[in-house]
């Protein structure tokens, strides 16, 4: 279980998270939606200790992430797969080395076991036989699939997806959605998906939470959100230009360097 407990985070004068609280139960896929720059990526970076909260806490399986020793944090990270918005593949390594990278850290696997796991992970994302290609030779969609393969190769308990379909055409986005569903079915992982893409949210999510002004504005099942009468939620789902103004928020998002698109 992942718990966000009254989380506060600011970057300079910009308060990004203002009492963000959310529980993600084991086995479910939680989709966090919200306008650009509202701190969604900032929130999930706390789960793997890439950011530390100013106040509040994030707990994974009851362990408060910010209180963990370096060794305990490394152990926690080895149970979490993180899919980055732009894949974050290592340019200097081929696809095999990228996907094997997290496995090598464990040191208990022999090379032929690593090769098998890499092959399985690439097959799961429909990219068999690409082991020797370099990241620069792949399209944006293929890079995201390799990023997904790298995350699932470590056989994580949790998956965190940071805007997995942003920048992709509708067909490739649908492919990524299918892969997220397939990953959940095959590995039984608990997932958090950050997205703006409502079609993707409805397809992959069990529950949806809307982050607005640094806290959860609304949460419920994917069926419930379609009937939500909150004006901000409705405006967001329907893609209305005045949706942000419905709640009185200004368009002054998180600085890009803080990790939010």
């Amino acid at each position, binding site marked *: 279980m992942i718990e966000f407990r009254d989380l506060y985070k600011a970057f300079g004068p910009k308060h990004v998270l203002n009492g963000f609280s959310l529980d993600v139960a084991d086995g479910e896929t939680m989709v966090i939606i919200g306008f650009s720059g509202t701190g969604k990526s900032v929130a999930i970076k706390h789960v*793997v200790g890439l950011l530390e909260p100013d106040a509040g806490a994030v707990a994974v399986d009851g362990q408060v992430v910010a209180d963990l020793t370096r060794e305990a944090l490394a152990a926690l990270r*080895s149970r979490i797969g*993180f899919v980055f*918005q732009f894949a*974050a*593949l290592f340019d200097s390594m081929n696809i095999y080395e990228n996907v094997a990278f997290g496995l090598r850290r464990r*040191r208990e696997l022999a090379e032929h076991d690593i090769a098998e796991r890499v092959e399985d992970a690439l097959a799961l994302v429909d990219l068999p036989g690409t082991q020797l290609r370099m990241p620069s030779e792949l399209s944006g969609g293929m890079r995201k699939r390799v990023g997904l393969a790298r995350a699932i190769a470590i056989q994580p308990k949790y998956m965190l997806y940071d805007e997995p379909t942003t920048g992709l055409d509708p067909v490739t986005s649908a492919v990524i959605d299918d892969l997220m569903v397939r990953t959940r079915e095959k590995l039984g992982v608990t997932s958090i998906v950050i997205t703006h893409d409502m079609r993707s949210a409805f397809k992959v999510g069990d529950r949806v939470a809307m982050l607005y002004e640094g806290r959860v504005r609304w949460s419920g099942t994917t069926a419930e959100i379609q009937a939500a009468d909150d004006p901000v939620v409705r405006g967001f789902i329907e893609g209305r230009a005045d949706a942000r103004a419905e709640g009185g928020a200004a368009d002054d998002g998180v600085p890009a360097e803080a990790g939010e698109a």
Partner: protein
Amino acid sequence: MLAAIGRWAATVLRGLGRLGLFLVDTARGLADYRTWTRLLPQQMRRIGVDSLPISLFIAAFTGIVLALLASYVITGAVPLYLVGTLVGKTMMMELGPVLTALALAGRVGANIAAELGTMQVTEQVDALETLAYDPYSYLVVPRMLAGTIMFPIIVAFAMGTGVLTGYLAATTLLPVTSDQFLHGLRLFFEPFDIQYGLIKAASFGFTITLIGSFLGLSTRGGAEGVGSATTRTVVYSAGMILVLDAYWAVTLLRHG
């Protein structure tokens, strides 16, 4: 005015504090030796072996110029064999280490800052961390160790090359015989001359790779940030080489 000075001082102190924390994290990164020992040979090749051609090129021409400059300065009653003395002492103690380091501040320092800076802004460093790697063990320690180990080796080759080309220039372009040059070279030679040059080289290697790694991993703001980190690495490294050069002279060359 006072407010501006205060802001500047606060910025400098913050930067030094971050550098101190960076060094502490790097020292901690040494503990994960199974990670960095695997990467060290590759960095030693990139930072050391690949830097040899440019270093030897610079040293070769420096040796020639030194020999000609020495003969130009030495006139009248001063014996010409001192050309060998001047070439040897200057290459070993000053120009070998300093010119090599200044050239490598651009080649090695800028390369490290650009590489780590790009990794930072494209979230590759975050990806390393989420895959349970310590970026200090994986990225910083191998580069800093390689710089500290390989710079003295490169400088040793540069010293030898400079003395050799100085010898060739003196014996072919000047009225200095081979015996005279070698006599001058040996006359005031102390093993300390070489040790002094190599100590300086190690400190330059440590500093250049430290600055490149620190500024690279501190990069923010995309391509512009990477460019800025790269430029600052070269400028700060060049400045620090000269500061360290003076420091070692004051520390090790003062007699009595």
